[in-house]
């Protein structure tokens, strides 16, 4: 698999099932609206697309990110590689 560069959570699709949080809790958490947000460096929580290098846990494995995305029951997590190509779904 190509290396993952960017992570996007589609808030319209996210239903807050928390599968991503349980799979990769260093990367995702649920906000007050019960939607997944991404944990960035410096304790920042973001609903925006995030580059892997800006993650609080930038060492997270691509495998963990992919498992988290695959576990989402609404396929709300999109992963992109270094060429901007969609890796998942």
């Amino acid at each position, binding site marked *: 698999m190509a290396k993952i560069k960017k992570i996007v959570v589609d808030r*319209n*699709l996210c*239903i*807050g*099932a*928390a*599968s991503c*949080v*349980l799979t990769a*809790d260093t990367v995702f*958490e*649920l906000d007050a*609206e*019960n939607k997944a947000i991404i944990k960035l460096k410096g304790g920042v929580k973001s609903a925006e697309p995030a580059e892997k290098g800006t993650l609080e846990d930038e060492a997270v494995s691509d495998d963990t990110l992919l498992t988290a995305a695959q*576990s989402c*029951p*609404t*396929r709300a997590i999109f992963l992109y590689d270094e060429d901007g190509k969609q890796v998942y779904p």
Partner: protein
Amino acid sequence: MEKIKYLIIGGGVAGTTAAETIRQQDPTGSCAIVSDEPYRLYSRIMLSKPNFFLEKIPFDQIWLKSADWYTQNNIMLIAGKRATALDTKAKTVTLDDGASIAYDKLLIAAGSCVRKWDIKGADKQNIFYLRALDDAKQIIAKVKTTKRAIVVGGGFVGFEMCDMLRLAGIDVTLVIREPHFWDPLLDELSGKRIEAALERGGVKILCNSLVTEAVGGDAVQGAILHNDSVLPADMIVVGIGTYCPLDWTAGSGITTNRGIITDEYLTTNASDVWAAGDGAEFNDVILGEQIQLGNWANAQMQGRIAARNMCGAHEQFRLVSFYVTGGFGITIAFAGDIRPAEGREIVARNAADGNSLSRIILKNGKIIGATMINNTKELAVITKLIEKGAPMEHNRDKLSDPLFDLKTLL
């Protein structure tokens, strides 16, 4: 008779994840999924979500696999067919069209069915249950012309249906048999907290109440309650629980209780037969109990582990199960085993301002489950504590202190 190396009964997330996993392990062995629904895999969890019902997200988002996925992966989808008999000695499954399929290895991932009303008038039109995509399609259509609705049953489906109906601008009355929402899984404080949120959102709630009759012409026009009062309604959504249809396994020698009994490897007592998902009553190695669960995470992970074991692995199923929902400005999360039972101790972990209410459930001094209202931020750490199974006898005061960082107990 056709012979399939890996035969899977059930096309939901457990069965389809299993097929996908089998393909990763064995690229060429024949694999077939029998599904009693005429559809490929869709997101059953999305069926009860308001954004889906109110068509705020495109309908096609429901599909989790493309039509091509099955052919590309050489997985045969036998859709719209139900298994009616199982012979574990001859290793065959009979379908409702009379066809028989022989198998080398069988996975039963047939899920559960909704429990239906047996009251007078229960067969009237516009009385709905929510389990399958066809149910959802009917509800989506009916919501557009409904002014007044009744929701029966206090649980996730009841909560989410109330949310959807209120967002659609419909008058909603929720009828629950118990004294408070989600009794006995939640205590009165938590249950009443959810009720307060529902009521703020405009839902009228009738506790300790039973519908005794559905009235109207061909279509339902209302419900008569236990106290003879009449509630008018254009539609009724009934969410009073599920059961696993096991009659088709009768005579097969497979041990069943409420579900199909398996060990921690998801193997049944019959050789070359595994079970996964809502229908599996498995040995949970974390809880040390035989347990049956109906949720997405459990079904997906069991499908994966059962498939690996069908392909020759010997992996235990280990997962702390969870379910989260949100609506009416609150979130509700359950983790692990939250069933009330003897010998369980509940530690309240409530925020001083009363915003979040959590209950941590201990058995033999270890955390086995938790219910959380407005506290999903602690879901991950609590599931890790359950998984770890560390003794908590001396940490009760920490568990009950909402300011104490639970991560330090890991």
